[in-house]
Every structure is written in C-alpha cells, then in structure tokens.
C-alpha cells in the first residue's frame, strides 16, 4: 500500500470538513475523488500535501507517517498540483519548471526530467521562453502539472485540473494523465468532471459532506444508478429527451 489515510478529520475553525475519512492508494493506481462543491475533496488533498491544517487521524505514505509540512512531503515524493494552477506568472515556462525541481540538486537528473516533461507537453517546449501569465488556461494547467512532475514525485495529487478548461482540452489533459500513470506515477485526482474522471481511473471514491459514501472500481461507479443521478446528470438527461 502506498498511501493510507485513517480516520482523518479536518476542521476549519468550528466547521468540520472531513469526518473520520479512511482511504488507501496502491502503487500504480489512478484514483479519483468525486463529489459536489464543499464535499471536502480539496481539503483531503491539502491534508495529504501537508498544508498545515487543523486535523486528527493519520496519513501514512510508504509505511511511514507524513508530517504536516509541505516541503517535507515534496521530499518524500508527493507533488500537489493546486487548484487554480498557481504558476509563477512573472517567470518564463522554463523558469517555472526550474522552480519545480527546487529540491533536485543533480543537474543531469534535472535535464532528464525537463526533457520528459517537454516530451509529455510539447506545447511547453514551444513556449519555454514565454512568461507564465501569457499562456492560455490549458497551457497554464500543463505547466502546473509539468512543474509538479519536476519534483520527481511518486504520487501526484491533482486538484481540479479541468477547472476552467474547454471540453476539448479536458480530454487532451486527461489523456496525459494516462501517460503519466504509465510512466510509473500513482495519481490521486480530485474532479468535478465526474464522468471523465471515473472513466479514467482504476478506483474511485464518492465524497459527500466529508464522508465517503461510495467506493469501487471506476467502471462500476460509472454504471451505478445513484452516482449517475447525483453526479452524472443521468435523470436530467432522460427528462430532457
């Protein structure tokens, strides 16, 4: 088991965002978390990434507990691609990627990583000298993912990567996730775009108000009538037809 979350509760002041949540991720999987706004999906990612939240419970990564410090978790091999991209707008694409490899001291490894990111996202190579803020939304998302990959993670946490992207770009980026997974990375994907996320992932969890209400194989959940009604808009579609 790669990552195990056990009885995790997270609070924002008096408000409880996660309620004794338990989940696990195995090596090489693509896991997705789906759920409505405010279900606690992003909170879970933040907790795993170590963004200093008020929390109880335990998170263990490769058998050892994770400390609630982001730079430590990055060192351990977990990279968070935050919601809303958060790239450095004033830096060029190349410089952004350099920042991503902040902990990498070996220049040779850095070059290899850079090449593999450029190979994955040729658009970034074309625009390597452009500043981050001049990129389109999709390219910025690619850059955010590329920057995450530069820290050579074992586990990639993706927070709403489809946010604000055109549908065509969403499919394109989702295809990249499969590629990244084949490169040997484990992926935890948090998404509102439930249909595509479920189709992509091996297993999935459905989150509602801080609790996991359903879990199973991606395919099975896609076929589950309750999930269809709540997250895939099946009923509305039937009514419309």
């Amino acid at each position, binding site marked *: 088991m790669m990552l195990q979350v056990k009885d995790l509760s997270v609070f924002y002041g008096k408000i409880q965002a996660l309620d004794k949540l338990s989940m696990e991720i195995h090596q090489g999987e693509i896991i997705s978390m789906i759920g409505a706004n405010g279900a606690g999906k992003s909170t879970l990612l933040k907790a795993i990434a170590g963004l200093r939240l008020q929390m109880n419970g335990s998170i263990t990564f490769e058998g050892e507990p994770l400390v609630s*410090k*982001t*730079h430590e978790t990055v*060192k351990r091999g977990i990279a968070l691609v*935050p919601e809303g991209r*958060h790239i*450095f707008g004033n830096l060029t694409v190349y410089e952004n990627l350099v*920042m991503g490899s902040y902990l990498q001291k070996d220049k040779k490894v850095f070059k290899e990583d850079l090449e593999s990111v450029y190979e994955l996202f040729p658009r970034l190579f074309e625009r390597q000298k452009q500043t981050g803020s001049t990129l389109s939304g999709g390219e910025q998302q690619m850059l955010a993912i590329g920057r995450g990959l530069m820290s050579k993670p074992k586990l990639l946490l993706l927070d709403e990567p489809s946010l604000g992207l055109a549908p065509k770009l969403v499919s394109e980026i989702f295809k990249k996730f499969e590629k990244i997974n084949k490169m040997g990375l484990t992926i935890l994907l948090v998404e509102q775009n439930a249909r595509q996320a479920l189709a992509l992932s091996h297993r999935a969890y459905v989150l509602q108000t801080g609790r996991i209400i359903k879990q199973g194989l991606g395919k099975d959940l896609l076929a589950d009538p309750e999930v269809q009604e709540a997250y895939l808009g099946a009923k509305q579609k039937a009514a419309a037809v």
Partner: protein
Amino acid sequence: MGYLLGIMTLICCNIIVVIGLSLLTGFTGIFSFGHAAYMAIGAYSAAILTTKLGVPFVLALIVAVMIAALAGRLIGIPTLKLVGDYFAIAMLGLGETVRLLLDNGGKLTGGARGFGNIPGKTAFPIAFVIMVFSVIVMRNIIGSRYGRCFLAIREDELAAECCGIDTYGLKKTSLTISAAFGGLGGALFAHYITYIQPIMFDMAKSTEIAAAVVFGGLGSLSGSIIASIILIGIPEVLRPLYQWRLVFYGLLLVGTIVLRPQGLMGGREFTIQGLKNAAQWVQEKIPGRGKGEKR
C-alpha cells in the same frame, strides 16, 4: 560642511534600515509597520554596550546586530504563521511594545528621558563604508538561492510550497536578516546622534521606513536606496519653509502614489542603460529636440 556630512551620515544609517525592510516587504512580500522596533533594539543594545560596559564600538555593533537578529527570529516564530495584514498588525503591536519597554526600562535605558552620553563614533566615512558593505551583502542575498526563494514566496506562497520550499522557515530567515539590518542601522544612528530616546523609534519612524520602501518601489533595492536619500534629504532641503516642509513631504508621497503607484523604480533595478533609456525618453518628449520632432 559638517551639517551636510551629518545629513549624509543619517542617510547612510537610514539606507541600511530601509534595505533591511526592503528584503522583507519588497522581496518576500511581508508588510511590517513596526520596523523601528528593530532599529531601537539595535540602538539601545549598542549604546548600553559602549556607554555602560565600555565595549569597543565595532564589537558593540556586531553584538547589537546579533541581538536585533535574535529578536526578529523569536518574534517571527509565532507571528509569521499569520497571513497578510495580520502580520503587519502584529508588527505594529511589536513596535509599540518595544517603545513602551524602553520607556519603562528604568536606569538601564533611561526611560522616557532618554539615553545620553553615547560616544559619537559614527563618523561619515565609517557609516558610508558600512552602508556600502550592507548594500553589497543585501544584493548578494537577493541574488542567491535564498533570494529566489523569497521572491517565489512573494509571487505565490502556495506555489512556492508546492515546489518544496520551506516557506515558513524562509520567512523566518527573511525577518531575521531584515531585523539584523535594522539593528545595524539603529546602532550606527545611536552613535552618530549620541542621544537616543524611545520616542525616536515610534510608529511615525516605522511608517517612514515602510514609506521609503514603497516609495522606492517594491522589489527594487536601488529604489529603496534612492527613496531613502530623497525622503531624508527633502525635509532638510526644505528647512527654510519651517513647518510647511512636512506638507511638501506629504505631497511628495501622495504625488508618487497617484502618478507612479508602482514606486520610483517599480520593481526594477537602477542601471546605466536604464538611465540612458530614460534620458532618451525625456529628450523625445521635449519639443524641438530629439526624435519627437522628426516627421
């Protein structure tokens, strides 16, 4: 001549304090309205050391810098977890706390009556050399790996954290260095003016330091230096106007905010090429000269 040298010495002391805050506010993106506190800590530590304990001036300077840095570090531990305005308010409180502590320091600090008989060791050449040295050190810090991390924190703290930068630790480092520069400036100031009093390091002083950083342009070291020279120099140049000079001082600040909200240098550094470009721009604007008239 002595008067002019005196003003220049004061400017040197101030530049050291202002570039210290420039690192924190301009390059790390953390606002502080209590920076006079570190200046006060440096000034009083050095003054007590030289006057009461007979410690040599240079050694006193070094110890004062270390005390100020330590104070910055200790204060940073609880307060740097605060975000944005809350930290600025905490620093405001710190500024007042330090002033009140000095006010009630009894025989050690001389209380509100002030602390006199400090040996006047800060001659202009000494102040100038230390100032130049400080600027070089600061420039190297900003150009270093640390400096780039500070910039990353200023640009986007979450992104910096996702890159594996220890943002909390580096913010503490930034505050520590910043406080050390404040302490150095304060220690030099005390040994120039030979008499210090807590009211010299009140909120108005803190605001003045912060104003110089913003006036010069956030994220510009040369901007901070130019701003310190102007903001200390202008009240002296305008001395014939008596109390009206503060009005002009205010107008200067308001004018800058309206006409050049990004500050004098606007995040860029002063270079010879930049000066040439500016000169060319001015020439083009003047009718009857330069390219502006060529049709």
